[in-house]
């Protein structure tokens, strides 16, 4: 059995160690109180989101940052590559034949942002590169249906369809002459 003296010494050492380590922790945290830390350490790290002072606005996000999607409908050829590859099936594309054989009228191009997981596969396979990620990250809405963003040119009426078919035939007739 160790002698009483050594156990008392061990006890006092334990108390001393405890108090010393508690104080070192306190004095490590103290400089933050007076903003004396070096480098960018001293300033607050958290930011109040709506305040304009927030440093992380959309423009200084990195270039590859994947935000909400945007499709430039003029360049979009309606090839539906993005619709096939999307894992969560949130892109719906519907085409109509345009006035000329080569032109396609993309009637409906909806992206359901509430189901999109921002994986970026659709942007990767888009040949005309019309579908891109913007830097916009504020995707809050009151109803999930408001999150369905549509880029389509709009559905066409049956009369327009017959009219365009007539124009196409006329053009083909001209070329065959």
């Amino acid at each position, binding site marked *: 059995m160790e002698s009483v003296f050594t156990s008392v010494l061990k006890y006092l050492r334990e*108390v001393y160690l405890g108090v010393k380590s*508690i104080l070192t*922790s*306190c004095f*490590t*945290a*103290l400089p*933050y*109180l007076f903003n004396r830390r070096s480098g960018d*350490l001293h*300033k*607050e*790290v*958290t*930011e*109040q989101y709506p305040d304009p002072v927030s440093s992380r606005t959309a423009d200084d996000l990195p270039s590859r940052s994947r935000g909400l999607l945007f499709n430039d409908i003029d360049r979009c050829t309606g090839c539906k590559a993005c619709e096939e590859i999307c894992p969560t099936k949130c892109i719906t594309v519907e085409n109509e034949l345009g006035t000329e054989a080569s032109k396609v009228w993309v009637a409906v191009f909806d992206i359901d942002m509430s189901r999109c997981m921002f994986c970026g596969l659709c942007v990767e396979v888009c040949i005309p590169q019309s579908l891109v990620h913007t830097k916009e990250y504020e995707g809050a809405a009151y109803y999930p249906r408001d999150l369905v963003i549509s880029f389509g040119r709009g559905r066409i009426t049956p009369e327009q369809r017959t009219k365009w078919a007539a124009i196409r035939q006329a053009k083909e007739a001209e070329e065959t002459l």
Partner: protein
Amino acid sequence: MKPWMSAWDGLDVFPAGTPEWAVAASIVGFVYFFVIMPGAGFMAFLDRKISADLQARIGPNRVGLAGLFQPLADLLKLLQKEKRIVSGWREAFWLGLHTMALYSTVAVLPLGSMFLLVDTDMSAFMLFWAALILALGTMLMGLNQGSIPGWFGGIRVASQALAGAFPAMIGMICVGLRAGSFRWSAVAAAQGSSPLHWTVFSDPFQFIAFFVFLASGMVLLGISPLDGGLSVPDIHGGVSSHLYGRRLSLFRLGRFYGFFLWSEIAVVLFMGAWNLPLFVTDAIRNYSTPVALEAVELLVLLVKTGLVMLGVTWVARANPRIRADQITDMAWKVLSPLSLMALIGTTVWMIWVNH
């Protein structure tokens, strides 16, 4: 006028004929509404601001200048969350419990040379009776919730109260030895206004007694660094786990009040209570009324209490918590021996040094 109310004569605020109970009631009301409530509000704000700074956060900055009225906003938010006023015995029982937990100690508070509500020979010991009632009230509130976290919280508060009481009392006796009596006015008189004459720095054993007194107060009342009964990670708030709305705000006020009470008594006993330098007291006495003198003394006292409370919050924020059984082990195996050592040391010091 009863002897233990003699200190109020200086305060010639009350007309001659008012009965004693009216004077006592008005003083208690004044203390509650003009010292504790604003103190609670300001200290809650300061605590959140200091913790935010320590943790590289911004902290409250929405309400009022730099978030000064944040506690007011919290209070209003909590009050309007009240489901509906449920009358009946359970509500009455809870309110009774809570008043027991919160207001049992207002009568004991020493707040200045003329503001001593109870100034008997044993008034310093009343503190323990009051603090134990505070702990008992908190425990019953925990058990009253009928939920397992509440039950565990209540039992832990009870075990801590037992463990913290002994070293606190011994620590206080050291002060009484030096001051010659346990009367608040005597204790205050034994200390001068400049720190050299405070009890803390009068001899090394008093210094140890001060820290033992403060630490065991934290154990006794479960104040932030040693709050086993209210620990968040495992029993999500313990005693306060199922409180909401009005009850939660009252409970928070109760927690703050316990903290304020203990650090205020620590200041009175160890850190030169409300003593002002002589030329200041003479100047105020000559030129203005005793109430002004009392106000200045109260201000000095509250500033020192605030510093002690911020010191404790600083330790609490920078360190992890220890388990409830480790807290009680610390109280029995570390604080108690230290307090006895301080007691013996003070007596030897007084006999050896003073002659």
